């Protein structure tokens, strides 16, 4: 059974089809939640809420390929994460001047494993992490981010730059530690 059929059956209310969709997409969506929320338990709760909303509003969903399902579900999860962070007052982002744009250390990141990259992202402060995820990974523009988080566009840019700086710093620290371990 492919995703389009599962969606069709799930729209009719078939619990089996809904479970299949959950099994198929839950791992991927869990990773999305983990990037935004540090706690594993909170991520799980957000995942449940996201899937609940997905199935509740499935009748309004217009299937346009497997990618559209992924994109829609991802959007739901990101919104759930942002709602969670807002409810916890996790990020209070102060308005700041727009600094010069700092390039992302892609080369250094490519050398790392997936779990190391995830750990580096999770270790960032909440505000930095959120904007980094939204801009770099999800691909939202600063204008969209400013609208989503109700902040100034310049603030979004400055937060992103700070996130990148901190990421570089952490990468260097990791490199040094790795080099030390190798020398021993």
């Amino acid at each position, binding site marked *: 059974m492919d995703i389009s059929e599962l969606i069709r059956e799930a729209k009719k209310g078939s619990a089996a089809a809904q*479970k299949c969709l959950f099994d198929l997409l839950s*791992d991927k969506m869990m990773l999305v939640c983990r990037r935004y929320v540090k706690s594993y338990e909170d991520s799980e709760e957000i995942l*449940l809420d996201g899937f609940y909303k997905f199935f509740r509003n499935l009748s309004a969903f217009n299937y346009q390929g497997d990618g559209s399902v992924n994109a829609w579900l991802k959007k739901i999860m990101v919104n759930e994460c942002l709602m969670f962070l807002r409810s916890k007052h996790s990020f209070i982002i102060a308005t700041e001047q727009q600094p010069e744009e700092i390039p992302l250390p892609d080369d250094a990141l490519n050398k790392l494993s997936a779990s190391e990259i995830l750990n580096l992202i999770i270790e960032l402060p909440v505000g930095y992490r959120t904007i980094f995820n939204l801009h770099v990974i999800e691909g939202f523009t600063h204008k969209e981010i400013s609208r989503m988080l109700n902040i100034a566009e310049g603030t979004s840019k400055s937060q992103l730059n700070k996130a990148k700086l901190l990421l570089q710093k952490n990468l260097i620290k990791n490199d040094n530690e790795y080099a030390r371990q190798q020398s021993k």
Partner: protein
Amino acid sequence: MSMQDNSQNNWKILLEDPQCFQDEILNDKNELWERIHHKLHKKPQHKVLTWYWMAACLLIITIALVAVFTTNEKKDYKVVSSPSFVKTLKPVGTQNSSIATPKKSENILSQSTPKSHTAGSIEKNNLPELKKSGESKNIIDSIISQLPQLAITSTATANDSSTLKPMAIAPPSKKKLRVVHLNEIGQPVEEPTVNNRFAEKHGIGWRIINAEIYNPVYGSSTNNGLLLIKPRTSSN
């Protein structure tokens, strides 16, 4: 250029691949699914019904409070068989013929305000002295000075015969006067109302250990909504 982009996005692709994250994979999907399934098929609660109940309870409480605080009756009362002040004024009547019969004096006194009835006890105490000495005028004057409310009627009986005469001569009014009973302390006792009688007959009392709890009398002015607890040993 496309190769460079691919190399740049390589780590991003890794981040979205669940197979790269063995630690982050959900352990018990079935349990999670059960929770979602339960949430999806949970029947909506009847919140409206609870609101109805809450509104009904509030209404009952409001009505009860209004009933308790707006009534004007007293619960505790004692009926005294004969008003004491009638006896006290008898000697005055014998001395001064213009005051005439005790019935008239009773009428006069009963018209006076409830405050004047406190004089009854005082007069009662002074009665033997009044009989013995015979100096009724002086004593009455002293009594009158003690009793400002009774002054009008008493002065009329004792001192001013000119004012008394027309009162005595005047035909007794057929108007039905209100009879006020006094208790032993000399305080006016109100007649039991229908509400009080009903509460006396049908009131429910609970006993707790060595005390009796009386439910509040409906229509009592002194009733402040609190239960009255009296020890069983008390005479009341």
